[in-house]
């Protein structure tokens, strides 16, 4: 026998408990709050929703519920007026969600009752399309994409590591990207520095990278710092950023950044490369180890050949630079396990990834309790001038 809409609602009411606004407000404030799922359409959600609610449009409820709530969770569904959520609740019951309820009167009554609600910052329709493969990932979602758009990442070097890192961070929608590099594009860079092009040889690397980023993603604001980072400018430059990606090509800059990131308490995403070998880690100041817990002192120049002297496989830069982009995104979103506390060592010839444990050194000259953190003459220090040369004793 055919059933009308009213018949369906009546049947749902017989089966599904309806929660009143006041009761829901109390339960949300309690320790054991139910999972609150808003089943309305995107445009309705964008105009405001109950704080703490998760948005799963009605049409996706069955396919996405497993990522949001378990069958034995307390679940409350909310829509605009309390009808769609009531019907949707029956479907969840069929799927084994025993403790599912519906908010009587929906979000409209919630708002009219004077309860708090939030109007979310939202993606534009163009952004929703551009970042759809991100927002589909539960760990990112629209909230994560908005975080990326609000994030500010500084790349030290727009070269082998900085090219892929900047390109992917720009594609990912990191809203502000700073490029610190005082070098110009050379033909010998193009084997690996993929953000530059043949017709931009001779241009400042930071300007060249800016052109590529703006062509890729107009959402990104690019700041050009066409200067060599030094102890006089580093704190001013990094102050405007949330995360620093170290793609420097020399030890003085790496140790300067290590000290500056501790002083400014900014996460430092590290990678270095030579020939077929890459290292990567993440240094979160005073939470995990720092660069100097790992390498207290730089090697002398004769044991530290540059890529200009020893060479580097172009593709290796892509692998390591993208690992940096990946880690920067995780730091921004606060998801997953970063490389903090681990050094990833990649051997491209053997195709092996190995991990070494990096622990906070209680006597660390950078982040230890007795460390006297101040800038030094990094060029002289890394050249071995005036460096104390005593060996390590356990």
């Amino acid at each position, binding site marked *: 026998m055919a059933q009308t809409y009213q018949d369906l609602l009546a049947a749902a009411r017989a089966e599904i408990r309806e929660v009143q606004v006041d009761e829901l407000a109390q339960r949300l404030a309690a320790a054991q709050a139910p999972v609150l799922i808003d089943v309305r359409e995107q445009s309705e959600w964008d105009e405001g929703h109950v704080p703490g609610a998760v948005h799963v449009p009605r049409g996706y409820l069955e396919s996405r519920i497993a990522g949001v709530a378990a069958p034995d969770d307390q679940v409350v569904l909310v829509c605009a007026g309390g009808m769609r959520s009531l019907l949707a609740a029956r479907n969840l019951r069929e799927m084994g969600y025993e403790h599912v309820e519906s908010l009587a009167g929906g979000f409209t009554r919630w708002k009219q009752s004077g309860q708090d609600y939030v109007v979310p910052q939202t993606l534009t329709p163009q952004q929703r399309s551009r970042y759809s493969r991100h927002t589909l990932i539960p760990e990112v979602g629209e909230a994560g994409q908005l975080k990326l758009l609000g994030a500010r990442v500084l790349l*030290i*070097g*727009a*070269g*082998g*590591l*900085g090219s892929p890192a900047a390109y992917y961070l720009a594609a990912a929608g990191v809203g502000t990207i700073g490029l610190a*590099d005082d*070098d110009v594009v*050379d033909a*010998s*860079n193009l084997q690996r520095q993929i953000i530059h092009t043949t017709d931009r040889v001779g241009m400042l*690397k930071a300007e060249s990278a800016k052109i590529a980023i703006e062509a890729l993603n107009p959402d990104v604001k690019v700041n050009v710092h066409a200067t060599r980072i030094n102890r006089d400018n580093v704190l001013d430059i990094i102050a405007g950023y949330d995360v620093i990606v*170290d*793609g*420097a*090509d*020399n*030890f003085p800059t*790496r140790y300067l950044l290590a000290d500056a990131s501790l002083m400014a308490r900014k996460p430092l995403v590290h*990678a*270095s*490369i*030579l*020939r*077929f*070998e890459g*290292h990567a880690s993440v240094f979160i100041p005073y939470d995990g180890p720092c660069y100097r817990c*790992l*390498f*207290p*002192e*730089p*090697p*002398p120049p004769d*044991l*530290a*050949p*540059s*890529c*200009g*002297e*020893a060479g580097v496989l172009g593709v290796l830069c892509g692998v390591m630079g993208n690992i940096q982009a990946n880690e920067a995104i995780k730091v921004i979103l606060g998801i997953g396990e970063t490389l903090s506390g681990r*050094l990833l*060592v990649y051997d491209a*010839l*053997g195709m092996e990834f*190995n*991990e*070494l*444990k*990096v*622990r906070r*050194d209680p006597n660390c000259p950078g982040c230890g309790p007795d460390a006297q953190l101040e800038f030094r003459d990094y060029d002289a220090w890394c050249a071995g001038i005036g460096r104390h*040369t*005593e*060996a*390590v*004793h*356990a």
Partner: protein
Amino acid sequence: MSTVRVPPVLRAAVGGAREVSVPGSTVSEVLEALYSAHPEVRAQLVSDDGELHRFVNIYVNDEDVRLQDWLDTPVSDADTLLILPAMAGGATAQ
């Protein structure tokens, strides 16, 4: 025999090998055996006063020996000893 993994900057000193097998039951013994077989390695890892340079990290498997018993850290045949100097490489050729 334990396995010693050789970083790129030291491979010339061991005839280009990425790994070499050497005997020894402590880090110190393994390194001495390595130096005997490849004297150039000693020159790059050890200072004039005979101590291992501060900029060289040594790991037994994945643990830094600085946080264990330093050169007395035991090494078995199943262990891998890794020599790891810092690398600077990144942006550009100087």
